[in-house]
């Protein structure tokens, strides 16, 4: 119902203002590219963070020690490293893509690790005894223990990490000297929602900015409803 209402309002606006409709195409293209960057970065974060957490929790059995370390690291905003990253990649082909990707990666990974480690404290305490007693190893251990034991923490971490990545997109996709210097772009991707928002501020195109923001908000709400909330419901049925 809500979706239908939004569609009707949007349709009316596009119908009466063809200019906004052309903005909409531009925004959707930017959003799609940023979406791809954010989720690709997240996929790589998962591929690295998940096995690392399994190792720390089940092999070293001292995850609480590392938890503090990751809490401290997670508190450092990735954007603070942006100048360093921009310099490191300058001169490479597609350097701006690598810069954006690095910032996304660093914005997300600590939340995933930190959330999984924190939630592992709620695991049944004799799970390692059960594992050793019944000789659950290798593929079976991944299927029956590791993935499922860490899933609730992973979902919380994923949600936070992706939020942090979207948050970082405004600087990651277009890094300029505005505010401290002439405003020249140091590292700017071709297309992306972060870059688009940045350029609307510079050019003063408030209409385009509003369209971009409305789309961003709509996308986040849709993902929350159809991905995260659904996952939470499924998980709390079993673990609750």
């Amino acid at each position: 119902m809500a979706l239908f209402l939004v569609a009707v309002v949007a349709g009316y606006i596009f119908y009466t203002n063809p200019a906004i409709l052309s903005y909409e195409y531009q925004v959707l293209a930017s959003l799609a590219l940023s979406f791809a960057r954010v989720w690709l970065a997240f996929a790589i974060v998962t591929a690295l963070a998940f096995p690392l957490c399994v190792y720390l929790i089940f092999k070293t059995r001292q995850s609480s020690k590392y938890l503090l370390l990751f809490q401290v690291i997670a508190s450092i905003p990735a954007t603070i490293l942006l100048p360093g990253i921009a310099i490191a990649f300058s001169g490479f082909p597609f350097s701006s893509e690598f810069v954006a990707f690095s910032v996304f990666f660093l914005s997300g990974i600590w939340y995933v690790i930190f959330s999984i480690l924190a939630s592992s404290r709620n695991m049944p305490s004799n799970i390692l005894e059960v594992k050793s007693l019944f000789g659950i190893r290798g593929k079976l251990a991944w299927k029956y223990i590791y993935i499922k034991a860490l899933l609730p923490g992973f979902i919380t971490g994923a949600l936070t990490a992706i939020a942090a990545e979207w948050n970082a997109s405004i600087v990651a996709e277009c890094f300029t000297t505005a505010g401290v210097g002439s405003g020249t772009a140091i590292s700017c991707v071709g297309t992306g929602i972060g870059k688009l928002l940045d350029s609307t501020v510079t050019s003063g195109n408030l209409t385009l900015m509003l369209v971009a923001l409305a789309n961003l908000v709509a996308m986040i709400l849709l993902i929350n409803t159809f991905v995260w909330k659904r996952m939470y419901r499924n998980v709390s049925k079993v673990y609750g």
Partner: protein
Amino acid sequence: MSMVSVDQVSFTFPVSGLKIMDSVSFTAEKGEFVSLMGPSGCGKSTLLRIIAGLIRPTAGKVMYLNRQIYGPTLGMSFVFQDFALLPWLTNLENIKLGLSLTTLTDEEKNEKAMELIDRFGLTGFEEYYPNALSGGMKQRVGIARAIASEPQVLLMDEPFSALDELTANTMRSDIMFMLQSKDISVNSVIMVTHNVEEAVELSDKIIILSGKPAHVKDARAVALKRPRNKRGREFIEIVDEVYATIAKE
């Protein structure tokens, strides 16, 4: 030949250096139900885990059918006080975990686990998660998981103490019935308990451990006929004697 023999087992915590067990020796013979008793914190549960191969003793050894134990073996299984079911697996999958070390195919494991589901009165609950079950039913899943691989020896760590008295009573008679009717592969049981009546009701032998560091204070045979009458004079006398031995300094 003893089913299990615990030979001069000592245990010292590696980090704190605290010695909690000093030269503990006893055996569990074929067909014997052995209870381990002692003041709380004396290391009964640690001893049971050493027997299971989950913890290595600092000194001494545990033999299962005359072979030294270095880690968990298919011949001995374990029932936990708090059930230790994996909450994210269905009851059927939890029981199947007990078959991980066997060479059965997945289909055979399913078949076997379903058979146990039926035998333990869990029919209809196989696709549910453990959080939908009562305490007594959870422990049934725990016991089914433990005996799935047809072990000879069952190690139980206060298996009935998390259950209400009525449920615990039923479970005790069910277990005893299964053992006596040779319905299951298990022929020796070692159970940790702090409930003296329970120990006298079930055991052929009660091992009483002293406090820190634990050593065997008394090994007492219980020769009463089964099924045992908990109100009988002899039963009450044995209960009193066991209480007295535990309390004695």
